[in-house]
């Protein structure tokens, strides 16, 4: 049976844990709000980019010699996986979901006889994957830990992927990231970046819109739009990851705070009972001592 002193110490330590988790929850909530604002601010550019790309791609459709960023290399042998996690833990299953999805994907592709290369983004997924697949990792990156993610981070990653494609290092590129549905739910999602799944063309429904002219010609415009589009898509997933990380951490810390509260209640009850037992015992000793006299 635990002594009163031990129980007091345990209650004290659970209380300070609860303070930490509830503070982390507040911080995550504040960061989440900022991350969501940033994700919303980045959407107009992505939308406009998608519209332009769809328009240009429509007008070159069917022509030969299209850029590899759009159509891929025409092969399906070497897969480049880009899993994206957060840099920090204590966010519930947020990072382990990414890790598990990536792991299953690697094993599936390997069993189909494909070559797999991995370029992890975010420290948590790099740490995990370098245990099992260290020979497949060609490079890795961190997100800006805790800080706001600049567009240049996405631009650099996009440029790296583009130049790997030009060197013929891979045929298909897939991004694995947590899609932000709401604060509670983030779904691990695989998104194929190369070859590109062409976005819907909003303008196509609108017969009023006359055919676009392009300056310079469609091909040149397309080949400068595509790398940019890749960067924009990566940027969008980075922002979603940042928002999702904070959402997941908020939920996880909320649960932890609640559990700590329950543990404190339980321990306090036990503490009080033990104290009462001790007092009763002492009384019995005194009374039986007095009777014996």
């Amino acid at each position, binding site marked *: 049976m635990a002594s009163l002193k031990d129980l007091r110490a345990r209650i004290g330590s659970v209380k300070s844990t609860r303070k930490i988790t509830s503070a982390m929850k507040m911080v995550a909530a504040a960061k989440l709000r900022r991350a969501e604002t*940033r994700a919303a*601010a*980045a959407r*107009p*550019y992505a939308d*406009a*980019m998608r*519209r*332009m790309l769809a*328009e*240009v791609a429509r007008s070159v459709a069917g022509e030969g010699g299209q850029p590899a960023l759009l159509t891929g290399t025409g092969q399906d042998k070497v897969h480049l996986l880009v899993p994206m996690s957060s840099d920090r833990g204590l966010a519930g299953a947020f990072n382990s979901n990414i890790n598990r999805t990536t792991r299953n994907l690697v094993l599936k592709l390997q069993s189909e006889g494909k070559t797999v290369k991995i370029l992890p983004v975010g420290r948590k997924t790099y740490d995990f994957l370098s245990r099992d697949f260290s020979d497949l990792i060609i490079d890795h990156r961190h997100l800006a830990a805790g800080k706001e993610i600049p*567009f240049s981070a*996405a631009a650099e990653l996009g440029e790296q992927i583009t130049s790997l494609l030009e060197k013929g290092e891979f045929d298909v590129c897939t991004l694995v990231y947590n899609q932000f549905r709401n604060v509670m739910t983030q779904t691990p999602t695989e998104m194929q970046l190369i070859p590109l799944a062409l976005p819907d063309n909003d303008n196509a429904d609108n017969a009023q*819109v*006359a*055919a*676009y*002219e*392009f*300056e*310079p010609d469609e091909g*040149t*415009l397309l080949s*400068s*739009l595509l790398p*940019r589009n890749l*960067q*924009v898509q990566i*940027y969008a997933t980075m922002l979603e990851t940042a928002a999702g990380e904070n959402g997941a951490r908020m939920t996880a810390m909320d649960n932890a705070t609640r559990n700590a509260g329950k543990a404190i209640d339980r321990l306090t009850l036990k503490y009080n009972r033990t104290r009462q037992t001790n007092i009763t015992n002492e009384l019995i000793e005194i009374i039986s001592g007095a009777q014996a006299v």
Partner: protein
Amino acid sequence: MSIKVKIVSPEKVLFAHDADMAVMPGAEGDIAAMPDHAPLMLTLRGGVVDIYEGDAVTNRFFVAGGFADIAPSHCTILADRATKLEDLSVDDAEARLAGLEKSYEEADKMNVPALDILMDKIQSARAEIEAAQSAIPGMSL
């Protein structure tokens, strides 16, 4: 009659307002977006976008390259990086230009596509310096 002009950078929307005309630096020459302009998509070089209401320039932005989508009723400028002209810094731009010229010197002269990209960036930095200088001496907007 006016057009909806929107200037967006990857990070946020900088300007969204109705205007009578927007003059932008197209890669192959300056282009003005006006109401009922034929639909056109173009690439931009580094330079200044002027927003007109009536005959007066109401807003000036520096864009470091990008794309533009001109349609009869709207005009969307997708800038790689966009700044209000007043907020530009000559020193920053000059530092960037110096860095770019250095990497141009060191670059592999056989790699033509990479050189072209560098040249575009240098042009954009020069345009930025020019734009920043023009904004300083009590520009009447």
